[in-house]
């Protein structure tokens, strides 16, 4: 007798989890305060899991989001060698938590059952919280972790309440069965709408959508830069994937309940995020708010998930967004390590006096803004607006358009600051740690990928769902 297990979904997650354990073991038996000890197994696990994912016959949305999650995790792991493992960050725990969260992210995307979803959500959340607070002896980090933790558990509780109600009205938590059960006219509408909305809250929280966004600037600001990158890219991609699957498979019958909610939330999120970003003087804070705004763009196709364009659009958008955001965060991590600050004033002229980090930052900012020469950013903006229009939400599309403008206002500020003539010589750490080279090369590879995709967007658009 065998238990039917879909290894195309479970395989990569298992590999990642194994990698997490191995990393912890290595650190336990070979404790060195460098990246190499535990980072290497984590990297290997990431590569193997990616290979396994690509080898498997998974297709469509889960594949796309899993790929984004895995590549993003790999990126974070490799770029993490910029971190101060010598003093502040325990490498073994770091990599273990990172890989655990990644496994949670993978499971979330693959979940076809609300129980799995909830467990995976927690598997993603709890290590993430720990990651945020992991930096030793840092008040900001622990405060950020506390904020993140409390808001997170509250939203989890709300989600669980929603799930329990959903179970109460349908008697099942399997996506497919839920989808069928909700069609039944006997199901009480009011309860369903409350239950659906509460269920979705947890995922919207992870995405950082308004009004569940307040933790984002604090957590990103307090966490290590690469952890913030992980949260903004991997965690969001996974939550979006899970949200899309949940809405399209389990809850299509309740579309009337969640569609306006999700659409309004998307519109609010992008607007609030962009407006909030306008006044930021720190590049990290700017990216934090910008990632709130981007969450709005990510959620928008979820509102019109019935459109045939929606799933590919979300996947393609999140892929480009994740890549650009990771490039930006990694570059900023390097800058923070070398210059000790990510304030915009301290970044002045970086594209001139440090082009290997400055130009990728420019490219990433332009991609996020959706502005040529980062054509890929523009094309994905087009792609993400298309389902919204196709789903007859032209008003939302217009708000998205206006937000493209709002976004440009601060991305342009970043770009201009980077390109300006530098004032004086920048402070550079006298003896840069060797490990930064790995991070630098990841940044360059990421930026090169953005350039290649800009020149030929078809590479991405034709091959991701």
């Amino acid at each position, binding site marked *: 007798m065998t238990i039917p297990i879909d290894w195309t979904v479970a395989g990569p997650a298992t590999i990642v989890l194994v990698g997490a354990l191995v990393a912890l073991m290595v650190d336990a038996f070979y404790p060195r305060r460098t990246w190499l000890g535990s980072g290497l197994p984590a990297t290997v696990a990431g590569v193997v899991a990616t290979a396994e994912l690509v080898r498997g016959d998974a297709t469509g949305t889960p594949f796309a989001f899993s790929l984004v999650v895995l590549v993003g995790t790999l990126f974070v792991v490799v770029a993490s060698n910029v971190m101060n493992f010598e003093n502040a960050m325990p490498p073994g725990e770091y990599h273990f938590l990172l890989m655990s969260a990644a496994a949670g992210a993978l499971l979330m995307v693959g979940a076809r059952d609300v129980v799995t979803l909830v467990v995976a959500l927690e598997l993603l959340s709890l290590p993430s919280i720990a990651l945020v607070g992991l930096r030793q002896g840092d008040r900001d980090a622990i405060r950020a972790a506390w904020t993140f933790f409390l808001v997170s558990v509250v939203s989890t509780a709300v989600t669980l309440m929603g799930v329990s109600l959903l179970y109460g009205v349908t008697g099942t938590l399997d996506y497919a069965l839920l989808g069928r059960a909700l069609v039944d006219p006997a199901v009480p509408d009011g309860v369903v709408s409350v239950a659906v909305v509460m269920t979705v809250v947890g995922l919207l929280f992870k995405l950082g959508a308004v009004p569940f966004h307040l933790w984002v600037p604090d957590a990103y600001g307090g966490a290590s830069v690469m952890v913030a990158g992980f949260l903004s890219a991997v965690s969001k991609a996974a939550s979006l994937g899970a949200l899309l699957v949940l809405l399209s498979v389990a809850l299509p019958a309740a579309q009337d309940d969640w569609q306006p909610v999700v659409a309004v939330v998307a519109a609010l999120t992008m607007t609030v995020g962009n407006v909030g970003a306008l006044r930021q003087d720190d590049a990290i804070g700017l990216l934090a708010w910008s990632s709130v705004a981007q969450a709005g763009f990510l959620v928008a196709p979820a509102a019109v998930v019935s459109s045939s364009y929606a799933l*590919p659009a979300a996947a393609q958008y999140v892929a480009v967004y994740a890549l650009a955001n990771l490039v930006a965060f990694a570059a900023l991590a390097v800058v923070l390590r070398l210059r000790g600050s990510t304030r915009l004033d301290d970044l002045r002229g970086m594209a001139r006096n440090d082009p290997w980090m400055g130009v990728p930052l420019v490219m990433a900012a*332009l991609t996020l803004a959706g*502005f*040529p*020469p980062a*054509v890929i950013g*523009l*094309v994905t*903006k*087009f*792609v993400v*607006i*298309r389902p919204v*229009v*196709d789903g007859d939400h*032209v008003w939302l*599309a*217009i708000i*998205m*358009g*206006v*937000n*493209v*403008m709002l976004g*440009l*206002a601060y991305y*342009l500020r970043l*770009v*201009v600051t980077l*390109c300006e003539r530098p004032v004086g010589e920048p402070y550079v750490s006298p003896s840069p740690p060797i490990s930064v080279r790995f991070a630098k090369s990841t940044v360059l590879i990421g930026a090169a990928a953005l350039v290649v995709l800009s020149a030929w*967007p*078809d590479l991405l*658009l*034709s091959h991701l769902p």
Partner: protein
Amino acid sequence: MIVAALAVPFVVGLLLVLGRRFVSGRAAAWIGVAATTVSLVLVAAVWEGREGVSGEVDVAWIEPVGARLHLGLTAVSWPFALMTAFIAVLCCLWLVADDTSPALVGLVLVIGASALGVFGSLDALLLFVFFELALVPMWFVIAWWSDADRDVAHRAATRFLLFTVTGSALLLVGIVVAAVEGGSLELTALRPTAVAIVLITLGFAVKTPVVPLHTWLPDAHSSAPTVGSVLLASVFLKLGTYGLIVFVLPSDHLGVVAPYLAVAGSVGIVWSALACYAQDDLKRLIAYSSIGHMGFVVLAISTRSEAGLAAAVFGSVAHGVITGLLFFAAGSMKDRYGTTSMAGIGRGLYGRAPWLAATFVLAAVASLGLPGLAGFWGEVLSLRAAYDVGSVLTRPVAWTALGLALVGIALTTAYVVRAVRLLAQGEPSALEADRDLGRREVVVMGALVAVVVVLGLVPQLLLDLYGPVYVGVAR
């Protein structure tokens, strides 16, 4: 060929920006002249006749969204492209000087190439990419090479960019709607709905600009360096009118926006003329006058008629050369006197720098639409189109617009005469910096004067593209 016409200036421009340390400004400008001349020759040579598409290139690009690298020139876009390439050559020529920054030449090339790309695109998404591509370089040109105060220039540049991007964001939404409806991004296959037409119109109206969306323009034009002003006026505004011609004019839903366009265009003529009358800064005056000229173009577009189409294209091209000439003349004065304030330049330029004054006066009267010079035909065809009402407007609207336009022409004369009186005439107040046109200025302005006169005397050069036989309206 058309790919080369785009790629040569683009690549050369990029190289100049990157290699700005390794080349002198003068050499960079000559390289720019060479690159743009190649581009101009290619654009001119690619022409195959007004029926059909010249130099068509059609390659798959982004399959999933149906976007193609589809380039080609039509009877509508060819004049625009030709004018752009020509202006780009002149801008580079203008920069042949010792104090030129190579990066500026590079940006000018990139901007010119992007504008050419817009005119050459037959795919909406590709067009949009080119449309946006020029904006950030333009920001740098305005903000960094401005003669104005740094903060003022930054503000003006940012205003310009945000206005334009707001427009283009709406435009993007409009294109998406049209593409979803039409099932393809080919310009000919777009099926804009009424909503899409409103969005697209708004998008291009900001760029054109149509009153009341014009407030970015005077700041940007007056802050920009000479070549920046020329590019903005001659090329960038044309992106707006071209877009209106290509997207809005052929649409079935033109009627939704046409009355507003007609009235806004004609109100703009009067409004800008009045604003011009109170200006002291020459560049601001020219900037405001552009709004008026674009008003004629917009009015013509809103009628959708053979004459209207011809008026729109002719008006755009004529405005490009005339306003380019005006800005070059203003730039000459700026070079000499360090200001473009008419009070600062002083009176009696006829006596102090006769040829400069004569060029300026010629450009000014061309700008007021004197028959026999290029500015006239666009205006008169607009008037004819408005009188004829066309196929979408109602007679009261069209004739109201016509009346406003006539008032505007009269006011235009008034401010041109005032400017001539304040600058060219009067007791000469001799300044140290007085000197007549240099060789570079003679070449640049001479070329433009020649075009202004030739287009004025032989309008058929352009109008023959749009005879009654030309049925493929605007496509």
